[in-house]
């Protein structure tokens, strides 16, 4: 009784036709009778002959009846061109029988007897009647045709022959031809113009006992015969959770935006209008991966492999080496040759064969350029993402955004099926074009939002994370300051230290504001030279004077800047202010500080950075970002701001950024007895008592000095005296 409860599985015969078995859930049921219908030239005969050659052997014989359609001789000659054709099987596997004569002269009953006679003799596994349509002409009524077909089908079934009845049947006949209700299966092959091209399609309309695909699937007939493409069936997203650490792109600073990295299996749209850098970003993603030991593949539909190689070489990448050592593969498919379904499967095969962990598609919008429907575009994009997901790779899918539209993909639906979107954009600024990168979306990853500057130049792409975004971003433990609370740092100007209550607090930010030529840069140099004396590396970032000018100025003031630079304790970086972009400074400084292990930093001419920005709120964001970053890195900073006023005290920096400073030092002129005299006022110190009085300063040999003629001149600042007494009393 147990046997009665068991489900029996129907034995199936495989077809040897690419993907057809998958559509049939394993193949044609053994013993079934199937009509293969379609218009002339659609590929019916080739399809069935391919199945026959795949199955034929001395043990599994094939009986192929030709009726009044294609003569056997012709059929054999055409067939011999295909790779599946095997001459040996014609003598020991497939037997062709021409029924032409008997069909012309005898009744269908005679035909039936003849067929049965051959059946008893050969005992075939497969029987083909090509074409069966001829019997519609030979029978005198629908009833006769039905009876003939029924009895033939029964006899073929009794002999367990899997039968294919080929015929020029149209879609309209499915409804009313009795033949279609008798047979077990119906496969229709058609051809029509689709997306501007003549294409072939196969559809399994009916197959008893089989959970088969019911969709139309495109197919091609090539040297290997019929190949059906069915990504909807063959590319199924596997339920896989990320199997390794997240992907770091290796592209300069981009990973800072991407938080912990991109989860494996993710696909990101790289969206932008033409010329925004999509191709280079995708290519560099693959190239950097190869350098890290991750294989990558680029599917390009516009640029040939040689042009991509040339572009890479132009940026200084040794992509040729990575290709030669098998880490990168570039697959170029000319746009006119794109066949979406076929190439989706090709992509799967190539990704699997290479073991690619990085996949770039340039571009998905070109790949799907013949697709007119957003729904189809969405489905195909999902299938591409599934390929990436199943390979546990990371995909960069470039896509063109139409100009002047508020979209981040061509159809406006692709972004819904990918895991992330990076938007590339550019704006015209003066004579230059400024590029931007924005991580618009990245699932399961805390990323930096907003638009960030991006450069493409020697070495590749550099992203400059926006100052305000990075300032608010959580930092790793490694990035935290190690400064000691309340430790003092000598400014290099003893009188100023006295005004500040003993020096600058370590890790603090001091803003020095004053008009041109009053001594701001000199003070900055002294600050670094004091650090140099204490072996604390210092960085002088100048937006005004070149290093040569600074060194000459230092020499004229007997400041040993040259020696400190030669000793490697002071580094001077000059940023031509007409070239520098505020967003890029933060990234550059972070790198430089990391390299030099900077303890003291002077940003001379910070006001020039601010002049690049329009809104006061942006001024505050930039300065706040800079100061926050310096504090995180444990750097004591001095920022100088040029003011337009010589004497006024109603404003300090002119920029509304004073609240951000820990120490605010104002350099101003006053009317002296013999003309203008420079003064210094400590307007603010955070966390420390200080002297509010204005003191004269002089700039001469040895630099800036507090004290001189007039005002509070000549007196030791009160705060310093108090602080000294306090230290003396302390145990």
């Amino acid at each position: 009784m147990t046997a009665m409860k068991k489900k029996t599985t129907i034995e199936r015969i495989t077809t040897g036709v690419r993907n057809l078995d998958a559509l049939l859930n394993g193949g044609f049921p053994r013993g079934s009778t199937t009509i293969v219908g379609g218009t002339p030239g659609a590929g019916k005969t080739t399809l069935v002959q391919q199945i026959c050659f795949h199955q034929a052997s001395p043990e599994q014989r094939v009986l192929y009846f030709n009726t009044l359609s294609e003569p056997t001789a012709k059929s054999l000659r055409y067939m011999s061109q295909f790779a599946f054709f095997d001459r040996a099987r014609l003598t020991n596997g497939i037997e062709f029988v021409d029924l032409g004569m008997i069909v012309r002269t005898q009744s269908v009953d005679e035909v039936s007897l003849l067929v049965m006679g051959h059946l008893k003799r050969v005992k075939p596994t497969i029987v083909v009647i090509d074409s069966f349509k001829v019997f519609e002409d030979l029978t005198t009524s629908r009833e006769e045709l039905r009876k003939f077909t029924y009895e033939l089908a029964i006899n073929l079934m009794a002999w367990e022959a899997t039968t294919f009845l080929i015929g020029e049947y149209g879609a309209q006949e499915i409804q009313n031809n009795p033949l279609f209700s008798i047979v077990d299966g119906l496969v229709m092959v058609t051809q029509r113009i689709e997306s501007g091209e003549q294409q072939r399609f196969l559809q399994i309309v009916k197959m008893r006992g089989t959970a088969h695909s019911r969709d139309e699937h495109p197919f091609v007939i090539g040297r290997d015969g019929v190949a059906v493409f069915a990504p909807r069936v063959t590319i199924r997203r596997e339920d896989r959770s990320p199997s390794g650490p997240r992907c770091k792109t290796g592209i300069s600073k981009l990973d800072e935006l991407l938080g912990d990295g991109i989860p494996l299996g993710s696909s990101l749209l790289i969206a932008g209008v033409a010329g925004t850098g999509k191709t280079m970003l995708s290519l560099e993603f693959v190239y950097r991966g190869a350098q890290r030991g991750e294989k990558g593949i680029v599917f390009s539909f516009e640029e040939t492999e040689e042009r991509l190689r040339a572009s890479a070489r132009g940026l200084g990448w040794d992509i040729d080496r990575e290709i030669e050592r098998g880490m990168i593969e570039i697959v170029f498919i000319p746009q006119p040759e794109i066949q979406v379904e076929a190439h989706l499967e090709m992509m799967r095969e190539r990704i699997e064969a290479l073991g690619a962990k990085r996949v770039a598609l340039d571009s998905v919008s070109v790949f799907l350029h013949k697709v007119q429907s957003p729904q189809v575009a969405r489905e195909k994009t999902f299938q591409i993402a599934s390929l990436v997901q199943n390979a546990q790779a990371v995909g960069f899918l470039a896509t063109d955004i139409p100009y002047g539209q508020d979209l981040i993909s061509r159809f406006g639906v692709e972004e819904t099926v990918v895991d992330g979107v990076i938007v590339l954009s550019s704006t015209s600024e003066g004579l230059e074009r400024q590029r931007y990168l924005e991580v618009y979306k990245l699932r399961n990853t805390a990323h930096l939002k907003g638009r960030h500057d991006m450069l493409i130049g020697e070495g590749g792409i550099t992203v400059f994370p926006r100052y305000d975004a990075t300032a608010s971003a959580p930092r790793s433990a490694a990035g935290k300051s190690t400064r000691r609370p309340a430790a003092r740092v000598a400014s290099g100007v003893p009188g100023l230290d006295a005004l500040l209550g003993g020096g600058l607090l370590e890790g603090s930010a001091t803003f020095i504001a004053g008009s041109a030529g009053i001594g701001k840069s000199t003070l900055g140099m002294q600050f670094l030279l004091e650090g140099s004396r204490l072996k604390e590396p210092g960085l002088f970032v100048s937006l005004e004077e070149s290093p040569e000018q600074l060194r000459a100025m230092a020499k004229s003031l007997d400041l040993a800047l040259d020696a400190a630079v030669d000793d490697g304790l002071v580094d001077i970086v000059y940023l031509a202010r007409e070239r520098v972009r505020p967003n890029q400074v933060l990234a550059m400084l972070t790198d430089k500080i990391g390299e030099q292990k900077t303890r003291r930093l002077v940003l001379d001419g910070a006001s020039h950075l601010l002049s690049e920005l329009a809104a006061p709120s942006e001024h505050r964001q930039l300065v706040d970002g800079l100061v926050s970053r310096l504090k995180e890195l444990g750097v004591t900073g001095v920022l100088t701001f040029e003011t337009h006023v010589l004497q006024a005290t109603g404003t300090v920096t002119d920029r509304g950024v004073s609240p951000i400073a820990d120490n605010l030092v104002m350099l101003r002129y006053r009317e002296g007895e013999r003309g203008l005299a420079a003064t210094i006022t400590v307007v603010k110190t955070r966390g420390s008592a200080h002297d509010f009085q204005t003191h004269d300063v002089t700039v001469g040999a040895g630099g800036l000095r507090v004290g001189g003629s007039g005002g509070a001149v000549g007196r030791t600042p009160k705060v310093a005296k108090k602080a000294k007494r306090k230290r003396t009393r302390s145990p």
Partner: protein
Amino acid sequence: MHDEHDHAACVDAWWTRHARAGEPAASLRALERGFRLVWTRAQVTLGDVTLMAIGERVLHDVAEEYPPLAALRIEQMGISCEDLEQDAGALASADLDRALRLVLVELLVVLGRLTGEVLTPVLHAELSVPSDADQESAP
């Protein structure tokens, strides 16, 4: 799934009850009766046309191995051994017994394969349940 061995075992049991060694006539009756039981039960489900086609195939296959069995005929209600009975001498009785038994086995095998063994339990039951007629014809 039933295999050929199951069908052979079922037919062996039937043959033991209904055929007699060295008596061709008894073997022919055993085939006719067994064939008819299976036929009648399967006819309800499969219909005449299908059963006739299957029967023809079975006889064709067995006759290839035992040519004298080409004298057997498929009829509306089963199998006719009349012509073979006339020519029983063509086979040694031991071979005849084996050949006739094979006809019944092949019928069950083909029916089983074509129906996914769905009918096999009831067809085996037909041959397994003793009837009054069995008592009469018991050797």
